[in-house]
Structure formats: C-alpha cells, structure tokens
C-alpha cells in the first residue's frame, strides 16, 4: 500500500494530530532536521491598551493584568515581553508595513521599500516541506507578509475558501481541469520567460532591475506550479469538522478571528503548512460585543475618555479570549508525544504600542509555545528599547534555521 496522507488519517481514525511524515516530505537540501517546528504570527493592528496588558512587575512572579488574567491557564506556556520596538519605525498606522519586516520608516512613505517578512524568510527554508509553504490570513485583506523584494504576499480573508484549498478534494474531472490549468500556466510562464533576453537589450540598469524582478518572479511561480502539480493529485488530508461558513460582516472582529484561529489550528495539525500569519481586524465598525457601542478604531483613539477605555477593554478582552482558545486547541493536540503547542510558536502582538497616540514604542508582545522556558515577564527598558527583531531571530533559530541576523536584530533575545 502506498502511504498517502489520507490513508494515514483514515487509519488513525479519530487521531487529530498528524505525525510528521518524513517519507512524504520532499527533501530539501539544507533544510533543518528534527521534529517539525511551526510559527504563527498574529498582529492586532490597533494596539492593546498597555496598562491592561503589561504586568507592573517583572520576572516569574509577576502579577497577572486584566488581559493576561484571561490566559491564566497557559501562564507557564507564554512569556510576556515589554520594552521591544522596531528601531526607525515611527508613529502611525503605516508601521503595519514593517511589523514582521522591520524595514525602516514606513511612515515616511516616500522612498519606503519593504523587505522580507519573518514568515517568508522562514518559508524560504521550510516551505518546501508542506503543501502550502505558508498561509497568510487576514480580517480585512491587508497582509503582514512581504517578499524579499518588498512585494506584497496577498492574504486570504475567506476561511471557507482556505478550508477548501486545504482539505477539500475536487471531483476527478475538476482535479483534471486543475492539472490542465497548471500545465497551461506553466507553458504560459515558460513562453514569457523565454523573452527575457530580447527584452533586456538596450535597457538602462534601473529598467533591467525591474525586468529581472519580473522574470525571477515568473521563474519562481513556475517552480511553485511544478510543486503544486505534484500536490494537486495527492489527496488532501481529511478533517472531522465541516467547512466553515464565512462571516460576511467585517464588523465581527471576534467571530472572524475565531474562524481564522480555528483554521490555523487545522492547518498546523494536518501539517498543511508550518507558517501562518494572521492580521486581525481593526475596522471603523462597531464590533458586536456586549457593552460596545463605538467602533473599534475610534475606541483606540480613546482620548482618555473613561467610557471609551472601558469599551476598548471589552473588545481587547474578547480578543485575548479567542487567543486563549487557540492556545488551548494547540495544547490539546498531540503529536509524537509532544503537544502541538510545544512545537508551535504563537507570537501575538501589535505594531502600535499606544493606539491613542499612534506610538510604535514598547510594543505589546506575547510569545507562547514553541518549547521555550515560559512563564515570565521579560521587561526591557522602554527608554532604550531592544529591537523586536531580536525576538524574531530567536524564533527563526527555534525553527531550526541557521541564521544570525534578521532585520534590525542585534542578537537573540536574552532571557527567553
């Protein structure tokens, strides 16, 4: 019997976790060995009210704050970190561009050029192992993920569609049509890339750079399509939950976030991907949460108004509850004797340290899982902030990637 993912899942019947199957993974030279390591990066783009998030005292015996209280059951599985920020990323919502990239000065816009995001950097090393090198999920459509050349990696907003891509096999004729389409697309890409030589003639260096970016994108997509063709005929893993229904209202911050988090758990447990980014909502709409009558963006500009602060707390507490559920799901899923949470870093934070003033200093940061020694409040001095990339570097190394620098890192994060 040939070993297929579906065969295995069926054999395992109710087994939730899919053990990592070396036999199924195409071997990539230079890729890290050892048990699979995963990473989920979550950003809540309007910040978290700092006094409700950061503990007043540091170390292992810190006092839980209103927000961290919600995660109490996981207290030994996460670390809360204060005093981190991206150097050279200044106030404003545009800091979202650099959240996972640390590219300097998105707020200036003119001349800004993004660089590779944490997840895509990791995908360059780990991506070949899974059906999807990475997943980008988003509440509203913007993304946290960027390519090496600073181009957008588009994010998906529809859990139903992503679920279908991950877990639903088409009819045989549909699979056939898909294969044909992939082959057509490969021929098309082949045809255009053959024109590189003639087109480059007579161009200045700037133009040549642009054209080279185009042709390397074409070649990269060709490679991805070759791999997609291998995967498309391979049955998808089957999960014991129905396809989710999309929540049409983008006001529903919590409902949509929950769907994205549940999908993330399924994607990880079936090893469909190991890298997920999630950009949560931050809309100018009123989220359907008891006691909340003002829109979320507005609340983040609370102007110290006690009523607004109170409503903001309700929104953010709900956010933390969904996060708590995700951590619970990951902890309750086992893989080769370990919990999935032990093998999955869940990084939760925001590009804003203070939504009211748009400040990007002292970002709220929480890292759960991934097998670190958790259970503490790592407090760095906000007056001389450490780069958030130090944490990113620690995370990359935990993924088994041999790297000693990422973005603006000056080293790994001490104390983790």
């Amino acid at each position, binding site marked *: 019997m040939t070993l297929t993912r579906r065969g295995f899942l069926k054999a395992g019947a109710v087994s939730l976790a899919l053990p990592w199957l070396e036999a199924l993974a195409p071997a990539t030279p230079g890729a890290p060995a050892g048990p699979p390591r995963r990473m989920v990066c979550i950003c809540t783009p309007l910040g978290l009210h700092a006094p409700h998030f950061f503990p007043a005292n540091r170390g292992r015996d810190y006092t839980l704050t209103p927000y961290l209280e919600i995660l109490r059951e996981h207290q030994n599985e996460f670390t809360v970190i204060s005093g981190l920020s991206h*150097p050279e990323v*200044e*106030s404003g919502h545009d800091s979202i*561009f650099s959240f996972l990239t640390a590219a*300097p000065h998105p707020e200036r*816009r*003119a*001349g*800004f050029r993004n*660089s590779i995001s944490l997840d895509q950097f990791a995908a360059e090393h780990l991506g070949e192992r899974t059906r999807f090198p990475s997943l980008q999920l988003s509440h509203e459509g*913007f*993304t946290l993920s960027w*390519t*090496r*050349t*600073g*181009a*957008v*990696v*588009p994010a998906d907003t529809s859990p139903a569609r992503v679920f279908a891509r991950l877990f639903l096999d088409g009819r045989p004729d549909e699979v056939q049509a898909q294969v044909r389409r992939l082959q*057509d697309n490969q*021929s*098309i*890409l082949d*045809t*255009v890339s*053959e*024109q590189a030589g003639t*087109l480059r003639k007579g*161009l200045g260096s*700037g*133009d040549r750079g*642009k*054209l080279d*970016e*185009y042709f390397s*994108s*074409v070649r*990269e*997509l060709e490679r991805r399509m070759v791999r997609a063709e291998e995967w498309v005929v391979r049955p998808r893993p089957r999960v014991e939950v129905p396809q989710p229904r999309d*929540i*049409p*209202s983008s006001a529903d911050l919590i409902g949509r976030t929950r769907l994205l988090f549940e999908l993330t758990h399924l994607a990880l447990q079936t090893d469909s991907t190991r890298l997920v980014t999630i950009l949560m909502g931050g809309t*100018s709409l009123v989220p359907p949460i008891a006691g909340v009558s*003002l829109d979320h*963006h*507005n609340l983040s*500009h609370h*102007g*110290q*108004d006690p*009523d607004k602060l109170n409503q903001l707390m309700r929104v953010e507490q709900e956010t933390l509850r969904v996060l708590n559920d995700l951590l619970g799901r990951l902890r309750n899923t086992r893989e080769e004797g370990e919990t999935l949470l032990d093998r999955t870093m869940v990084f939760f934070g925001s590009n804003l340290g*203070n939504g*009211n*003033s*748009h*400040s990007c*200093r002292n970002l709220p940061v929480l890292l759960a899982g991934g097998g670190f020694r958790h259970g503490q409040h790592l407090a760095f001095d906000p007056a001389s902030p450490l780069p958030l990339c130090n944490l990113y570097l620690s995370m990359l190394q935990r993924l088994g990637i041999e790297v000693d*620098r990422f973005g603006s890192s*000056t080293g790994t994060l001490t104390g983790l």
Partner: protein
Amino acid sequence: MTRIPGLVLLCLFLAGLAHAQTPDAPMKVAKPSSEDRLFESDIRPLFTKHCLACHGADKPKGDFRLDKLNADFGDTATLDHWQRVLKRVRAGEMPPQSRPRPEKTEIEAVTSWIQSRLELAEKARLAEGRVVLRRLNRVEYGNTVRDLLGIEVDLEELLPLDTPAHGFDNVGEALHVSSFLMERYLEATDVALNAAIANGPKPVLLKKRYDLRDERHIKVTTEKVFRKQDDGLAMFTSSAWHQIVLTQFYPKDRGRYRFRISAYGTQSAGKPVSFRVMGGPMLMGTKNHIIDYFDVPADKPTVIEFTDYLEARSHIALLPYGLQHANHVNKIGADKYDGPGLVVQWVEVEGPLHDTWPPPGHRGIFGDLPQGKAPVRDDSQRVEVASKTPEEDAQKLLHRFARRAFRRPVTEKEIQPYLGLVKNRLGKGYSFEKAMRVGLKAILVSPEFLFLKERPGKLDDFALASRLSYFLWSTMPDEELLFVAEKGELGRPDVLRAQTERLLKDPRAKAFTVNFVGQWLNLREIDATAPDFRLYPEYDELLKVSMVKETHLFFEELLRDNLSLTNFVSSDFSLLNNRLAKHYGIPGVDGQVFRKVMLPKNSHRGGVLTMASVLKVTANGTSTSPVMRGSWVLDRILGKPPLPPPAGVPAVEPDIRGAVTMRQQLAKHRQVESCAACHVHIDAPGFALESFDVIGGWRENYRSLGKGEPVMIDGKRMPYLKGPRVDPSDVLPDGRKFRDIDELKNLLLEDKDQLARALTQRLLIYATGAPVRAADHKQVEAIVEKIRGEEYGLRFLVHSIIQSEAFRNK
C-alpha cells in the same frame, strides 16, 4: 537620516563610527575622485564647523545626521538627503536663528557645491531616463483589461494593493512584481477572458415594470411607516431597516441595466424629496454599491433614469433620505402621518443591454469567426468559437490583439512565441477557442503588456500616447490616439495639445480626478475613520459621499474652465448639494444635485483647505490635531513637507475629557527649541484649521464628552457637551499674524508661485510615475514661469506639464 546603504565603508572611515547595515544592502565603495577630495577639503569642514554640534552622532536633532553624509550622489538616499540640506540652507532655516550665522561666502560655497553635484548626478540619471520601467498598477491594470476586452468586471479586487511612493501609487520604483502577483494576474486573466468571451446565446432582454406595493417587506412589516396609495407606495421613513429591496428584480445575467423610476415628494411643503438607490446582492454583509442619490420634486411625478452594471443575481434597493425615524412615524401611523414622504409609482428595468451579440469585446478578439455547439456537463447551450483554418486564424487574431495589448505595432516575429503556444495546444487536442485562450492569456501576463516600456531619450509616439492616456485616463490609448501615433504625428506640439484636449473632454478623464485628486488630497482615505457618533451625531453617509464629490467636482470645474489654481487655497465658489450646504451653514440649496454655489462672505469656506473632505481625512474620528493638519497643509498645498518627527519623541496623546486643549498640550512642545524649529512651521496652519471639527463642521468651541455645558439644537439635547473655546489664531514663522483661517488663506495667497510649484511637482510625479528630483526643478520652475503669465490656469498647467521635456522624455 540614519541609514545610507552602500556608503558604509566610506562612513566608517570618515566618521569612525560603527554602523549597522542591513544584510541585503549592496556594498558599494565610492571611488575617490577630485570631487570627493573637494568635498573633504572644502565642504566637510564647513559642516563640521556649523552643523555637527546638533547633527552629529550624539542625539542628532531632527534625527538628521550630517556626520555620515558623503559625496556619492549616485545613491538616491544620499541624493535626497543633500536635497534636504540644500533646501534648508537656502531658505536660511539652517543653521537656526539662535546659532552663529555662517559667512555668506561659506553658505555660497556649500549651496553651489551641492547644486553642481546634484546637476551632475541628474545628468547621469537622465541618460537612463528619470522614469524607471513601471508596471501598470492595479487601477490601471483593471481599466486596461476592461477596455481591451470590453468588459466591466471588477478586476482590481483580485489584485493585491500597490505600495504608494512619493504620494502616488503609480510610481515605478515602488511597483514590484512577485510570484504571488504573477499568480494573481493569471487568475485575473481567466476571470477577464471568461467575461469577455461569449459562450452562450444572447441573454434574453428583460423589460419589466415593477410595483413596490408588491414587495414582501411591505406586506410583512409590523411598523406603520408605508402608505399604499392608488398610484404607488408612499415611504415616510429613512430608517435603514425600511430600505426597500426590489426583490422582484433578480437578473440571471450580468450586464448593464437601464432603470426608470417614477416618483415624487408628498406632504413635503413644496420641497424636493431625496432618495438613495443601491445595487448589489443585498445579502447581509455583502458588498453593495451606492448607485446615486436622486431628488424628485414635490407633488409632480417625475421619471429618474439611469443605467448601472450589475452582476447576476443582484437587486437594487431604495431608501428615502432625510425623512423621520421609523419609531416616530409608526407612533402616528403612516395613514395619519402628515410629514414629508416619497411616493414611488413604479420602477422599470430593461437589460442586459447588448447592442450586438457576441458583444464587442468578444469580436475584438475573434472578429466574425462563427461559434459552434460545445456543450458541457451543466450547460447544454454552450457554444465556442470555431475555425476551419485554426493556425492562420490564430496568427491573424493574436497579431491584432497584441497590437492593442502592447499599445504599439508588433512584428510577426514578436507574435511567434504566442502563436507557438497556441499551435502546441492545438496539437494537444485543445479546441480552437481553448488554445486561443492560452495564447491570449500569455499576452496578458507578458511584460510588454504589464509594463509601460519607454526607451531612454525622447519618447517615441507610442510611448508618448501611453503616457498621455495613463496620465489622463488611467488606461490604454484608444484607437484614435494609437492611430495618431501610427501616423507619427503625436510628437507635434499642436497635435499633442489637440489630443490632450480630446482626452480631457472624454468621460474617461474622470479617472484623472479620482486617482490624482484622490491621492493628492488623500480623499481615498475618507473611510479610514468613522466619526464618534456621540460627538458627531449629524454625520451620515450622504454627507460623506457629498464631501468627496464636492472636491472632485471642484477640481473638474477649475480644470474645465482653466481657473486659477489659487482657487485651491481660496475661492468664492464651490459645488454643493443640500446636505453639504446644510453642513456648511449655507442657505438656499435644495436637493441633492450638485451645483455651483457662490459662497457668502462669512462662510469661511472656499478652497480645498476648508472642504469637509480634506478636514475629515486630516483628522481621526474623535479629535483633530494641529500637527497632523499643519503638516498636511505644508506637504500637500505648500509643497514644503516638514521633516519627520525625531525618533523616540512620543506623539501628543489626545485628551477629549474637556479639561485641556491640544493647543495647551502643544505649547509645551513649542517651548523646546529643537521642536520649535519645525513646529513653528507646522502648527500655524494647523491652528487655523482648529476652527473645523473632524467632519469639517465650523466650531467656536470643542465638543466634549467629559466636562462642559449642555448643547441644545432644535430643542433637542445633543449627546456631547460644549468644551473649551477654539483659538484659531497664530503667527507664521516670518512673523505675519493671522486671527483665523480667512486671514491665513490670504497670507498663503501672497506666494502664488509656491502654490503653483507645489501642485506642478505633484502633477509631474503623477503624470510620469517618477519622483521629482533636483534636476527636474529647473523644469518645474519653467512651468511655473509659464503659467504665471496665464493667471495660473489649471488646464493650462496640465497642458504645460504634457508639453514639458520631463513628460516627453523617458
């Protein structure tokens, strides 16, 4: 200034400082030349003497370091930094007044050295062309594919957002390509070809008259807010849940539909009544679009006619505007209610409108080739284009298509790869149409289609045609423009001028307004914040769409009538409807149709600075910030963008509890000299605009949610309180005082050249898709010179841009 990739080694040597470098930054070591030696011997010492005390390595003021600046003008970051230095030194702003003044000769030495180096660098750049190869952005891509294939499908939604640079999303240097984007292009192409190619018989024309009294909502609602009259349905409320969806109309084919609505105002005291029409699937949470707001006169049945493009299985929906809340009407009961209402007699729909079948887009690809039966699983009616001589036809069709797609003539040789692909597919047993689709798709993802290709030097007629049409239409040249280019005449100034006029008069020029003004004045951000409804209960959707429309129409008015661009700062007229006029406190404007209105003397309006749209996008939903608005004015209107705030200085935290104003909070800021250097420029226009709240309403006092007296309007108590008084007065850096926005506008008008310069630069960036740099400043000045003699006419400015060397060269 902190990171100048590429010059690190030199910096280390010169400044002896460790410097973090990004791992990806290319290492480039500038060769020492006589110029560099001059820099070291004559120029650097001047900086050391006068500047490094503040702008050295240790806590550089304004986060601007001069100790690391070097002479490699080939590096764009360095180049930009030198430009900033030049600007500030020339303006006498640096060194600041409080510091010892450098000798005149020293200033002269520095400025002329920078200027000459900038010009040299620019010469080198010009040899390559100032505009780097740029791809179509998502708006241009969507428009181009739509025009090329004659379809109306929304393709932009399928593509990721572009990153703007230098204020616009069509600047080549920031328009990247990735494998993800290529994948999306392939998907978008499938969607577009499916929409363009007719695979069925002509959709049956629906022509029907509907009666709103038959709608289910009327039958099931328990609230007494509708009155069934003999001649139609009277609607008395504007509460959103009583919007009437015309469920009887549910087309199975997408396309353009013509609507005719017969309606009139009732019990409205002779005043017109307005209503909104929306189109879309009308399911909860789905994306619907506003078709428009319409007016009908009192008591006189009037037919409103419009067309709209709808996807299959869409509805339209009607809702009166400005009528009473449903609870109020319900309490009285619609039959007894004597307040204003809207009577809708009937709604007629006709469509989908197709003059010919297959539609023009289909024939644009396949000409008159016949279609034959090609049934599939779930569609027995399906047809496909067939050919008896597939290879010859493919060659002919691809050739014709590629000429339009590439926006220039193409040779047989250039067609070969695409033809080869089609032949290969035919060989694999694909039908003619299927094989052609593969070839067409390849053309639509080829670089010749996706990029605006321009050769260094003077643009050839085809590149010029594309530049012109993407500037004014955000889409490909039409047949006439291509034809003029083919004749080789577009390069002639009179022909170019005539074509510019033709394009500006075409409805497609709307794209210029929407995309240029939408970015220049940030109107695209109109939805970025929603005003706090406790502070701004009067805000509604019509106000929002009217705000944007006013600014669009105002721009178009100036452009059409060649009015002076100084109107953007101060003007005695605007374009208003009733909603906006009410917002501005201007009497005598009935109905929601926009018209030109002469502004009363005391209106405080006129010009974009005091338009609600601009005032809204420069505020958040709760509070205004003089800093945000002030920098916006400096950047967008005066063309003197302030330096970014130094690192680590926190923004002022807004406080709306009513105890302290932003001005008081900022006062502390301005006492610090290093802050004052910039804030003396920034805050002044910002303070003047404090007279306007976050939705652009005039205010004498702030609104507060904490402390303050109650506010009554029309006998109703408002949910907000009367906060501290606004003080809009301030002083410009040169000492000129103003009491309020009206006086400030007059002061700004004193330097008309600067206003012209600022707008010229913006337009030039947008027109060419490249930033304006040092060497372009001469051209900018030449244009300013030209339009000064023409009373700064906006249309003349657009012509001058198009006739300029910068526009006509790569």
